[in-house]
């Protein structure tokens, strides 16, 4: 059977949860057509009930050890539930949380890990997946040499599933060790409050060095993002200049996004940046340099100064709304 480990916040499932349901469906015929969902932490009961509209079986587990979801306690919970259910595939979303826990789960189970995959197939009983390497310049095809396996799935790659027959919900119970809670979680800083989540946004507006300053973001990027109900991204240069927080950085050392529309403003298009956005459905760019590398990976490019072009875009979008 396949166990999918979904993420939720206070009872609300993350978008990646529905993508994992679809990813599991791709493998299910080779795994007895049996898939269960696992929801952990505060709010897991409500989230499990919501997930049961999509899966035949949902397991939820909340415990004091999981109150701040430390990686080791989550690992223990996942490994125990996987063992009890005889899971042959454990699927995670390749979010920061998923990328942190899934290698621990694979190492503890001593099984193959397929990391940040774009698709999943079964050949001769073994799971084969494609994933990026070399700063997303290469797509490699990797085979897990045995079963069971642990997989993390790149967010935004699989379509979100539609509701199916309602399934059952049961509570699990797991015995934790004292090691599981030795890391204590302190202050959390949530970036960009009140704005749509960067990794879940359907539209992402990213500013690069060409935006010029913190003020440039407030005058150009923020109002355009508001007009499009978009998440805000930034390049490494912008973050290193202190114009925007790390949490907004897109690229190799930042977030990976795959929105319907990626709008790059004053972004040159360094390799490290492209690896964070090259799965976007439509890429559009505004840059005054017609030779900027970003145009080579764009569907639509407007050659012009962002300080002149972007206010016109904002005005046009506001006009069409009213």
């Amino acid at each position, binding site marked *: 059977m396949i166990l999918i480990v979904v993420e939720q916040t206070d009872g609300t499932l993350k978008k990646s949860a529905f993508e994992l349901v679809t990813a599991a469906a791709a493998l299910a015929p080779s795994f007895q057509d049996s898939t269960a969902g696992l929801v952990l932490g505060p709010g897991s009961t409500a989230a499990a009930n919501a997930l049961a509209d999509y899966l035949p079986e949902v397991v939820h587990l909340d415990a004091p050890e999981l109150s701040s979801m430390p990686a080791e306690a989550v690992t223990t919970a996942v490994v125990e539930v996987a063992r009890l259910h005889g899971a042959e595939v454990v699927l995670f979303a390749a979010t920061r949380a998923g990328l942190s826990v899934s290698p621990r789960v694979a190492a503890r189970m001593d099984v193959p890990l397929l990391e940040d995959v774009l698709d999943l197939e079964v050949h001769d009983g073994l799971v084969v997946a494609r994933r990026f390497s070399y700063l997303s310049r290469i797509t490699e095809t990797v085979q897990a040499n045995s079963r069971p396996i642990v997989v993390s799935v790149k967010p935004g790659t699989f379509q979100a599933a539609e509701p199916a027959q309602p399934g059952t919900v049961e509570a699990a119970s797991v015995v934790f060790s004292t090691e599981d809670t*030795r*890391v204590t979680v302190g202050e959390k800083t949530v970036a960009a409050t009140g704005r749509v989540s960067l990794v879940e946004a359907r539209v992402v507006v990213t500013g690069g060095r060409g935006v010029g300053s913190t003020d440039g973001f407030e005058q150009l990027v923020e109002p355009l993002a508001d007009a499009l109900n978009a998440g805000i991204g930034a390049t490494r240069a912008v973050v290193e200049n202190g114009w925007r927080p790390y949490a907004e950085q897109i690229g190799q050392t930042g977030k990976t996004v795959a929105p319907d529309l990626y709008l790059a403003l004053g972004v040159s298009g360094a390799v490290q940046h492209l690896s964070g956005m090259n799965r976007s459905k439509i890429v559009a760019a505004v840059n005054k340099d017609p030779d900027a590398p970003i145009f080579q990976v764009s569907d639509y490019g407007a050659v012009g100064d962002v300080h002149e072009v972007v206010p016109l875009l904002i005005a*046009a979008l506001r006009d069409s709304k009213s």
Partner: protein
Amino acid sequence: MMKIVTILKQVPDAEARIRVSGTAVDLEGVTFVIDGMDEYGVEQALRIREGGSETEIIAVALGPPRFEDAIRTALAMGVDRAIHIETEERLDPITQAKILATTIGQEGADLVFVGGKEADWDSAALGPAIAERLGWPHSDWTTQLRLEEGRAAVVHDSDDGSEALSVPLPAVITTQQGLNEPRYPTLPNIMKARRKELLKRDLSAFASLAPKTTVLSEEIQTSERLNRLFMGSAEEVAAELIAHLRDEAKVI
């Protein structure tokens, strides 16, 4: 005395052109550098030592002979000595973690730095996997670190922003941009590095480990883009862009 291990990789330069011959990446003629994410770990270890605590810093690398250049860079930055476990085989992170955890255990390390994401295999798995093998806690995507009374007070990037953690030692810390600004090796230190100990070990010294994954093929990542370019006045290009996003791509 505190012992710190920094794990090193050598990767193609970010500006290097990656080619494919047949069904595999061809790295012939490519310029290699120490992985930038590993440099943050080396720099942080040096700063801990410079902060006054008696510290030995050991660089450990698992990979082909060419990795020696990256090791020399770390020694020139100020690492005390290095261990290079040589193999031409591409090993998955879970298998690598077993080999590296054995070495880290033999060295009796208190703290291990691992690059947050490898610039060749685009993997963030090695740090958490090493921690699990050692039975240690970890912090990933770490942007701040301070040692205090047997614990590491860190700030790390999370999905929603950032999070402060207090991690008991021994621990594995994976790095993130922003942790520090790595130094450049000076000429005297490059000279001095040549006399530092670089212990070569053969992979056969470790228990035979079959790789858990196999790369079947590699191809250039291509994305079909329309590459439409609008030129003219600001008014013209803005109008063209809006029109195409609305009427052709239908994304706004």
